[in-house]
């Protein structure tokens, strides 16, 4: 994929951390194994990381490590969905989602009172979409259905959801985070969200 990589040496310089810290965080599973990418270079094998992901992760760790023990932090950052249930009212009260997003979701899924994490993600995406001001109420309703179908296709919520609009008609599109799409020149992307990073933000808000 066309993801920009950063070498370990550069990373340590840029983030201002030591080998010891990097290895400790790896040991505590704060940095996922998949991010350690080995590549042959002229000086032998070197380790690279996906640049944006690792830099934002390290910022996050640095910010949190003062108040939160590393083991607890590892739990919060783990890619596996967390076991968590909340009612819609709870989410509004916690300020995670707007009242409108919550009501809209209840419209489409009338008998959902207690939401599992997967559904909470949906409400959160709905909230983000409405907040952006680029998505109409009707399109937002369609997002709920689109999400429900696409979430089973992509593993671990590793996906990006776009709203593509042409002549005022919007359709939702789900794709792998780095998959390229070529659009009809008359169409435009009205709203786009990376679900994996939305999940990460959401998780930090809920815990």
């Amino acid at each position: 994929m066309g993801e920009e990589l950063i070498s370990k040496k550069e990373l340590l310089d840029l983030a201002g951390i030591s080998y010891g810290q990097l290895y400790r965080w790896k040991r505590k599973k704060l940095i996922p194994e998949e991010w350690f990418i080995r590549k042959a270079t002229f000086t032998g094998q070197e380790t690279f990381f996906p640049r944006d992901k690792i830099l934002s992760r390290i910022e996050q760790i640095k910010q949190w490590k003062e108040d939160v023990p590393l083991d607890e932090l590892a739990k919060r950052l783990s890619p596996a969905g967390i076991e968590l249930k909340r009612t819609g009212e709870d989410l509004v009260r916690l300020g995670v989602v707007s009242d409108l997003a919550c009501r809209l979701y209840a419209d489409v899924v009338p008998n959902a009172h207690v939401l599992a994490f997967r559904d909470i993600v949906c409400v959160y995406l709905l909230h983000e979409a409405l907040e952006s001001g680029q998505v109409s109420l009707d399109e937002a309703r369609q997002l709920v259905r689109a999400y429900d179908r696409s979430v089973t296709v992509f593993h671990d919520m590793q996906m990006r959801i776009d709203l593509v609009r042409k002549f005022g008609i919007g359709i939702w599109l789900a794709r792998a985070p780095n998959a390229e799409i070529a659009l009809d020149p008359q169409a435009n992307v009205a709203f786009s969200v990376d679900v994996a990073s939305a999940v990460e933000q959401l998780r930090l808000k809920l815990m």
Partner: protein
Amino acid sequence: MPEDLEVSGRTSMGGGTYRRVEVNGLAKMLGDIACETCEVNGSAQVDGSLRVEGRLEVNGRMSVDGPVSAGVLEVNGLCDVDGNCEVAEKADISGVVRIDGVLRAGAVNIGGRAQVDGPIEAERVHVTGNVRCGALMNADVIEFELMGKSKVREIGCTTLTATVGSGGWFSKPRLEVETIEGDSIEVEAVLARRIRGDVVVIGDDCRVDRVEYRTSFERRGSAVVGEAVQI
């Protein structure tokens, strides 16, 4: 309430949940075992996983065809694990251990011989015996008192010290490793391709192709260093 299990003769049985397991004879267990403590003085074979909440002590021989987890691990005999080995606190290896997967523990002490195909992860690793590790050895503090030959593919740590241990004149003490990365590195008798660190001291009897250091670098005695670069 789980019961105690004591095998004195020779038996073959299924798995199960027990309080205290003691094998003095010869036991073959076909299935997963969960218990509070386990002591093997004879010979035990487990076809399944072994989960010990407290202390797992192997004085005889044990082979497990599956993952092992324990609170504390002590091996004075022979222990063969076909899977990962997770120890909550301390793993004390005075005998011989072979692990097919990861060895993860709070602290690892290797006085005997350990062959680990996967990574070794711990807060502290102390080696006075021999170790062979086919992947990354990742720990906060790593100490080698070298006796004979040890081989580790990669080392990542905060502090690494390797010194030549006293005694043992059968084979030359030596630690072979491809890459070492750490904050503070002080080694003797190490054969390495690359060493990267903040403060690096390469001592007697070392051969290192390339050293990359940040703050300081020192070469002592008969060390051979291909090139040393400050970055």
